[in-house]
């Protein structure tokens, strides 16, 4: 069932004599224990905000432990939503309103709140024990340490219990509805309708667990009405709908977008999708999403390990299907040898890496961009692979379609570099019209009676070999990891042939034409400073560029969607600016590629804290470069930044 919401901003049921203030954009963060349902509250708030027509951007932030010790800072789970009446590009720098379900959540998050911002605390969770677990000697709500915020104490536990007492649920189950109470309260605060969440509760629990559905609905409504009637809030805020491009929208996360992009590619190519994966954070949601759409003839295979996953994907590709595997950094490392086989056998393959903090197990639930070198170079031998990096959650859809287009057109593995922030983050997506998407044309050579034999490595003008699939009479051939004689595909140890093949494989990748936009550009074509980025930093860099422009700085942003091969005109572009700054969530990997390829004195703005850049951080970094500073710890809230210069 498709529910289409009227784009009209739903007015609050009644303002009840309170002042209604209209704001251009607001950032809210829900924070609590990892068992408190904060991700659900955040997702629901996002859905509702999208449905009332705001632009949205989200940042889910949760610990790797499923249930870290309750009430401790280690177990705090947060969900930040930025919603706006204008175009936005990031989940927001500073928070306008924080919901803290316990002292640990308060402690971990209150620094992000703007001066004068709202802090809603669940006062029922601020007992002596709770404070101690969070490492507070005295109650921060009482000792004046929060005086720069508007602290609002709400007895969320008690109110939830009272609201749901007639649902028939036990005390423990009722307690689990307190996220809905908090959500209801924030809905009221920002004048959002409850319908979408009520519908969600009904769909999720209605039939199977009617008492749970009732309790959650009662808690949600109680939170809303509490905001309306209690004398705690004197103001209510409205954020009008955004002026986005006309059309029909939905909310989408990066991982959903990749899954939908893959199914779309399979339809556009009229080929079966075989997705093979081993569960790994933060990529597993792609496997979950695809598994739910088997009526699209999608085959999903949960392999015994990362290597089996990529091997099965290559096997499927040999059979003529769209073989694909998805993982994160540690899994990409395990797949390296098999990806090399796909390069050698020149078979189509799409490898998705939803990057996370590394090295090793690293920070499984946090974002990072430190796998660029692994994607570029992490294999034995000369082993070039095209790399595509989506710039936003919804762009993951395009990137997935483009990855399959290139993989099949050029008979090559393609790496799609997403990251945890894109994968879990959400934004509005202008739903594409399927009938207008270009088909992906694939041809397989036909049956042959040619006695001289089939030439599996006979190449076309783009150095692409034919994709002959088993079952075709007369085209029987053997491929493998040993070096091939060009043309015949027979095993060859001939030195000249090997050099020819190494250079041919490189030339094929170098000659790849993008299947979509290769550069997302913001600003003038020449000027003082160019910010070069890739992947999920797009939003922060673009927003920072617009801010810097307002201050009269001749700045532009060049965001690369294709990292291998780099866009042909990039060298010229870089030369048109006095300074080049490369903000990355790593220690300067793209910067090193640019410096080595173009001999340009690119500076780096590097952050590896498991969190995306804020706009302010990028603005400070650019200004530091313009003022000629060599080593700067940009202000903002911490030592999170490090402007590194020149040499390595």
């Amino acid at each position: 069932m498709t529910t289409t919401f009227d784009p009209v901003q739903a007015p609050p049921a009644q303002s009840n004599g309170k002042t209604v203030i209209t704001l251009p954009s607001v950032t809210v963060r829900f924070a609590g224990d990892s068992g408190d349902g904060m991700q659900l509250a955040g997702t629901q708030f996002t859905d509702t905000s999208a449905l009332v027509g705001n632009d949205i951007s989200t940042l889910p932030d949760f610990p790797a432990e499923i249930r870290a010790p309750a009430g401790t800072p280690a177990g705090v789970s947060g969900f930040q939503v930025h919603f706006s009446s204008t175009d936005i590009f990031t989940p927001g720098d500073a928070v306008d309103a924080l919901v803290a379900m316990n002292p640990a959540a308060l402690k971990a998050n209150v620094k992000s709140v703007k001066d004068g911002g709202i802090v809603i605390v669940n006062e029922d969770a601020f007992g002596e024990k709770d404070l101690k677990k969070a490492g507070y000697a005295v109650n921060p709500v009482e000792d004046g340490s929060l005086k720069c915020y508007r602290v609002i104490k709400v007895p969320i536990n008690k109110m939830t219990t009272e609201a749901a007492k007639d649902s028939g649920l036990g005390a423990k189950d009722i307690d689990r509805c307190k996220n809905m109470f908090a959500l209801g309260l924030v809905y009221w605060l920002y004048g959002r309708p409850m319908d979408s969440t009520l519908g969600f509760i009904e769909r999720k629990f209605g039939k199977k667990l009617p008492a749970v559905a009732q309790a959650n609905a009662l808690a949600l409504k109680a939170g809303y009405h509490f905001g309306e009637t209690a004398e705690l809030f004197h103001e209510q805020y409205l954020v009008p709908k955004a002026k986005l491009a006309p059309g029909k929208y939905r909310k989408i996360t990066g991982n959903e977008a990749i899954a939908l992009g893959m199914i779309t590619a399979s339809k556009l190519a009229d080929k079966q999708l075989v997705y093979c994966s081993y569960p790994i954070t933060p990529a597993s949601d792609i496997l979950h999403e695809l598994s739910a759409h088997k009526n699209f003839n999608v085959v999903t295979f949960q392999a015994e390990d990362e290597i089996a996953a990529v091997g099965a994907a290559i096997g499927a590709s040999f059979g003529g299907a769209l073989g694909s595997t998805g993982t994160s950094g540690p899994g990409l490392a395990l797949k390296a040898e098999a990806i090399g086989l796909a390069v050698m056998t020149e078979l189509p393959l799409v490898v998705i890496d939803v990057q996370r903090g590394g090295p090793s197990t690293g920070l499984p639930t946090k974002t990072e961009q430190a796998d660029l070198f692994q994607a570029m170079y992490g294999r034995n031998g000369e082993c070039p692979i095209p790399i595509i990096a989506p710039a936003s959650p919804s762009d993951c859809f395009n990137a997935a379609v483009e990855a399959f287009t290139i993989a099949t057109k050029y008979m090559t593995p393609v790496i799609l570099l997403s990251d945890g922030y894109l994968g879990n983050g959400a934004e509005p997506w202008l739903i594409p019209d399927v009938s207008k998407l270009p088909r992906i044309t694939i041809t397989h050579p036909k049956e042959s009676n040619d006695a001289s034999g089939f030439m599996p490595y006979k190449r076309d003008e783009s150095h692409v070999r034919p994709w002959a699939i088993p079952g075709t009479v007369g085209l029987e051939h053997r491929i493998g990891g040993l070096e091939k004689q060009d043309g015949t595909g027979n095993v060859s140890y001939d030195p000249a042939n090997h050099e020819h093949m190494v250079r041919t494989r490189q030339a094929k990748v170098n000659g790849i034409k993008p299947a979509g936009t290769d550069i997302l550009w913001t600003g003038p074509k020449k000027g003082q400073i160019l910010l070069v980025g890739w992947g999920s930093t797009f939003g922060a860099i673009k927003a920072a560029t617009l801010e810097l422009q307002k201050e009269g700085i001749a700045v532009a942003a060049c965001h690369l969607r294709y990292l291998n091969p780099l866009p042909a005109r990039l060298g010229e572009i870089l030369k048109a600016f006095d300074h080049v700054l490369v903000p990355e969530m790593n220690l300067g990997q793209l910067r090193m590629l640019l410096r080595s390829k173009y001999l340009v004195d690119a500076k780096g703005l590097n952050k590896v804290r498991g969190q995306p850049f804020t706009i302010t951080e990028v603005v400070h970094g650019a200004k530091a470069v313009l003022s000629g500073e060599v080593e700067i710890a940009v202000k903002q809230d911490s030592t999170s930044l490090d402007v590194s210069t020149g040499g390595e």
Partner: protein
Amino acid sequence: MSVAPLPSNLPVLKPGDYATNQDVRWCPGCGDYSILMQTKKVFAKLGIDRSKTVFISGIGCSSRFPYYMNTYGIHSIHGRAPTFATGLKLARPELNIWMVTGDGDALSIGGNHFMHIIRRNVDVKILLFNNKIYGLTKGQYSPTSEQGKKTKSTPMGAPDYPVRPVSIAIAAEASFAARAIDMDVKHLEYVLERAAKHVGTAFVEIYQNCNIFNDGAFEYATDKATKSDTTLYLEHGKPLVFGKENDKGIRLHAMNPEVVSLREVNQDDLLIHDEKTPEPSLAFLLSRMRYPDFPEPLGVFRDVEHERYVNLVRKQNEEAIAQKGPGDLQKLLTGNETWTVE
């Protein structure tokens, strides 16, 4: 079903029809030649369609096999052949897929995948050439080498305890497990034919002599003077009898097999082979019998029917289509909740 009966008007295939134009590069005298020959014979006998057949291998001497069969083939990477075979079968259930591997490839580096391709019953025929040595890397001990084996990497003898391939296959829920030996070509042909006809994953361990690095590893089982006493040919429904004079048998004593003389024991007291019993304990017990304490069984240990993996996978697609209808892409992209900007 892997092998369909042939229409009578097709040309009769000969073993040579399955040969490629590539020179076979195994060492002269290698047991692999015999296995290649018997495979081609069985393929010709069954009229197996070259264009619908794929040989997939890993790395090692045995893994060169696909280059010598004029079918489709992948010479993949070390230990991972089962993964490529599984993915290919998922994409193309109708293909006839054979996997060729060795004791190092399947049991050492590829031990994990080996277990999973068998327990999933992917419907791939697996030929494991067991020569108890690493040949391609010139003579290190393998997971099937006997304890104490002196090799280049174990000058003081291998400290490792060996594994038994058929035992592992049975423990991994194999629906078909068999053993043959390169020198007994008639029996090898019989076993390969049985494997070809099995519906589901068929595992065949083939004792194979490496005349360069481990010559004579199976001499006890091939030497005319000893082989009747050191091997036992399994036959479904028949008592376990062996010996030059067919005068010895295997009897179960408590939970253990024991060798008995038929001069002292009635044949009715011997173990009867049953390859069809769903319970795998008998097959497992047979797989544990090892020279010199026991004759080593050759033949089919187990041949039962399990649902094939790809059928289960494809049924889910069919069920999803039956429940939700064939996928409507526009509807999928649109999702459940939308809003419109004018």
